[in-house]
């Protein structure tokens, strides 16, 4: 796995190097033609940079005679700096003409075909001056690059002899759109010293500098005059805010070389170089920056240019606790260096590491071209089928003036059990991700009218009152039962009385019959029988003391015990002294009262 990843990395690097080495742009230009006098021969050169073509299509200059051409010269260079390979080639097609008469002539356009693509030069001009001008004294001729005689020290260095230009490839761009900005020194004189006192300031821009070594090496025609130029600075600038942005001028101290013609006596004149210090300030450049059109689509993070994306999942087997990699590549032209890393939608079951971004961009033509490679390393934590969501990459294409959305595919991956890292893993609670709303209710929603809550409606209180009213009515109807049920003590007594009455039923008969002897016998028997049954005392053991202890153990009061004893005494006494018949009714009442008291004792 690791080995495999390393290999892909190398592959990526190799591919990258390949693309960068061949990145120099093809260019086909007409070289400036030096000043020509009538009757002179002159060369018209077309230069093809970084292309291979032998057939040039052009027509002759009308009014000049072609002596020879085209002669082809080829040069090629290849360099590797810090592992960065660069190759360049140059083919020059030279036509030699004879200027037969004075005048201004048009150099017709020339074209070549390189790799199926046609490159053409713009038509140029050649000014053939009358022969009489050539014999004029040099001081009366205008300063010329290739005519040292004209570069005398008595001349002041004019603003169109030496100057610095800020050149922007475009003046109306969108925010974040790349602009090529070059700062060039133009001079007709040779220069011995050059010192920038104030660099141009790029307020409101992000700058991508190109590596240039300033050297006075290129000839160029500007406003019909030939200059030697030096590229001071080349950069790609990205405007950061809409509105009118200005690149402020820079100031330069330049020492130019002029020549004094020193007469050495006779016809000997010697040119003596003389330096002159001048101060030059460049022009200012203003750029109109248009805001990006609104509404900006979702997912747009500020990428402007043309891009393509590619994502690749390394490997096809995924195991738990085994790191895997998703490589995301953004390739294209534009503000690639400022593109934000996309946030890939990984399942939350994956442990993620901070993505590693690698930007490899170089300036190419009027923009920055390159590749941003982002490596997302993730570690699946659990077994299962997961989906790595597709990512939307949105950029603004300033040429088409529209937003373009690219999507990467979603990856369905299956994670199998890898080597366990720890001996055992704790069970996990089911965790809701809670990242979205629930789905709509799909059943019949039963639309209808929603009435008032029933607690706010009168009928509810009516039905609430119904059971209460029913209760009251039933209570009134059964108030006798009610009263009886409420008299707890009376009931108890009534029940106890029933027991006593049952026991004393015979005694009552005797009482009514005034049979004193039998009455007392029966009362005694009833009382003894009651006590015997009540306290479960066998008849043989029924003694005064036993009765007293039993009564005491059942919580009877001293008074009750005393009255039981006195009743027993009274009944026994009465059996033998029959004179006390008058108290029979009292005895009966007392016995039933005692039995009731004992009954209520039992209930406690």
């Amino acid at each position: 796995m690791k080995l495999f990843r390393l290999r892909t990395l190398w592959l990526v690097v190799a591919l990258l190097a390949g693309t960068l080495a061949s990145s120099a742009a093809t260019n086909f230009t007409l070289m400036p033609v030096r000043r020509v006098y009538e009757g002179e021969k002159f060369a018209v050169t077309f230069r093809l940079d970084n292309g291979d073509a032998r057939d040039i299509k052009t027509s002759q200059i009308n009014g000049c005679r072609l002596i020879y051409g085209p002669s082809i010269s080829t040069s090629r260079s290849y360099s590797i700096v810090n592992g960065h390979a660069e190759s360049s080639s140059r083919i020059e097609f030279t036509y030699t003409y004879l200027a037969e008469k004075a005048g201004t002539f048009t150099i017709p356009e020339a074209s070549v075909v390189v790799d199926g693509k046609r490159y053409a030069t713009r038509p140029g001009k050649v000014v053939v001056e009358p022969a009489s001008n050539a014999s004029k004294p040099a001081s009366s001729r205008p300063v010329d690059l290739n005519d040292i005689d004209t570069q005398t020290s008595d001349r002041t260095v004019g603003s169109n002899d030496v100057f610095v230009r800020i050149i922007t490839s475009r003046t109306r761009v969108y925010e974040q759109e790349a602009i090529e900005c070059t700062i060039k020194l133009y001079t007709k004189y040779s220069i011995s010293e050059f010192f920038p006192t104030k660099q141009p300031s790029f307020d409101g821009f992000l700058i991508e500098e190109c590596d240039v070594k300033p050297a006075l090496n290129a000839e160029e025609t500007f406003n019909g005059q030939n200059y030697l130029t030096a590229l001071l600075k080349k950069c790609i600038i990205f405007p950061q805010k809409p509105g009118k942005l200005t690149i402020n001028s820079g100031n330069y101290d330049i020492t130019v070389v002029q020549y004094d013609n020193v007469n050495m006596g006779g016809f000997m004149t010697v040119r003596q170089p003389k330096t002159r210090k001048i101060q030059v300030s460049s022009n200012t450049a203003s750029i109109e920056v248009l805001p990006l059109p609104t509404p900006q689509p979702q997912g747009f993070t500020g990428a402007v240019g043309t891009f393509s994306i590619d994502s690749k999942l390394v490997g096809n087997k995924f195991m738990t606790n085994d790191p895997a990699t998703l490589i995301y590549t953004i390739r294209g032209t534009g503000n690639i260096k400022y593109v934000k890393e996309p946030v890939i939608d990984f399942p939350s079951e994956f442990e993620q590491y901070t993505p590693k971004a690698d930007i490899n961009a170089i300036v190419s033509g009027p923009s920055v071209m390159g590749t941003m490679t982002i490596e997302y390393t993730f570690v699946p934590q659990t077994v299962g089928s997961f989906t790595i969501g597709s990512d939307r990459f949105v950029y603004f294409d300033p040429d088409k003036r529209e937003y373009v959305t690219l999507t990467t595919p979603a990856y369905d991956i299956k994670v199998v059990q890898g080597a366990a890292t720890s001996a055992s893993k704790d069970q996990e609670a089911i965790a809701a991700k809670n990242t979205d709303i629930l789905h709509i209710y799909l059943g019949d929603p039963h639309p209808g009218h929603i009435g008032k809550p029933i607690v706010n409606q009168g009928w509810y209180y009516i039905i609430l009152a119904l059971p209460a009213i029913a209760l009251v009515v039933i209570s009134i109807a059964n108030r006798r039962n009610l009263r009886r049920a409420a008299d707890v003590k009376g009931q108890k007594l009534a029940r106890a009385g029933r027991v006593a009455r049952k026991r004393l039923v015979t005694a009552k008969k005797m009482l009514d019959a005034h049979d004193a002897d039998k009455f007392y016998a029966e009362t005694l028997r009833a009382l003894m029988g009651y006590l015997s049954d009540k306290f479960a005392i066998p008849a043989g053991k029924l003694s005064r003391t036993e009765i007293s202890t039993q009564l005491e153990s059942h919580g009877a009061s001293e008074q009750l015990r005393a009255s039981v004893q006195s009743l027993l005494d009274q009944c026994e006494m009465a059996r033998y002294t029959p004179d006390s018949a008058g108290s029979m009714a009292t005895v009966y009442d007392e016995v039933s009262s005692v039995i009731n008291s004992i009954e209520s004792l039992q209930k406690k």
Partner: protein
Amino acid sequence: MKLRNLFFILTAFIASVLPTAAASLTEKADSAYSAGKYQEAAEGYMRVINEQGVSAPLYYNLGNAEYRQGHLGLAILNYERALRIDPTFSQARNNLEFVNTKIVDRPGMRGTFLGNACDTLANQAASDTWAWIAFVLFVFVCLLVAMYLFTTDVRRRKIGFFGAIVVFVLSVIAFLLAQRAARIATDSSTAIVTAPSAILSTSPRQPRDRNEEALLLHEGTRLTILDSVKAVADSVPALWLDVEIDNEHRAWIRATDVERVR
């Protein structure tokens, strides 16, 4: 019985004519939602609400469609409306709580701890459910009182007596919860901010300077309306509402920036 039969036949007849239209309308809106055409779905649900009446699932679905369109305020409004009808609608509560985590403002404490606890309890069932629980419990109270009155057995009388007290207290609680739930469901003072953002004023008019700007609220925040005042500014009458955001914040908001839950 005969009347009932007639009623059934009638409803069956209406069901065969009317609800097909209703079902097709909601089904259309459901399928538009599933297809990702949320605006169309929202319009469909709103049409059903206008033509056939409301229900908790309809408001819930409408809330979902609004959320998908990014209208957090309207989504919260509709979830609140769904919960007014059915406070036990757990999906609506779930989504409401979820969307409330997505809005910009996080208000402070609202109401008292005890009041909120009562509200939570009251929201465990619809007001009508509480009302019927109270009624059934009250019937039990009467039965227990009758048991106390008419039995002679002391144990039964005791059960009747104390049981009646306990069940009566429960019945009163259920009744109070029914009233509380009814108050929550019919409360007209709750409103939701539906404008993307609104600057509240210290007085019922457009803030004249920075000092009159009370606070800034965003879409989806729930408010309690305490008062309303019609203010005329530049001969344009505008309704301003005195609102309470939480226990500590109170200010005036333009009526057009909010929508009442009911």
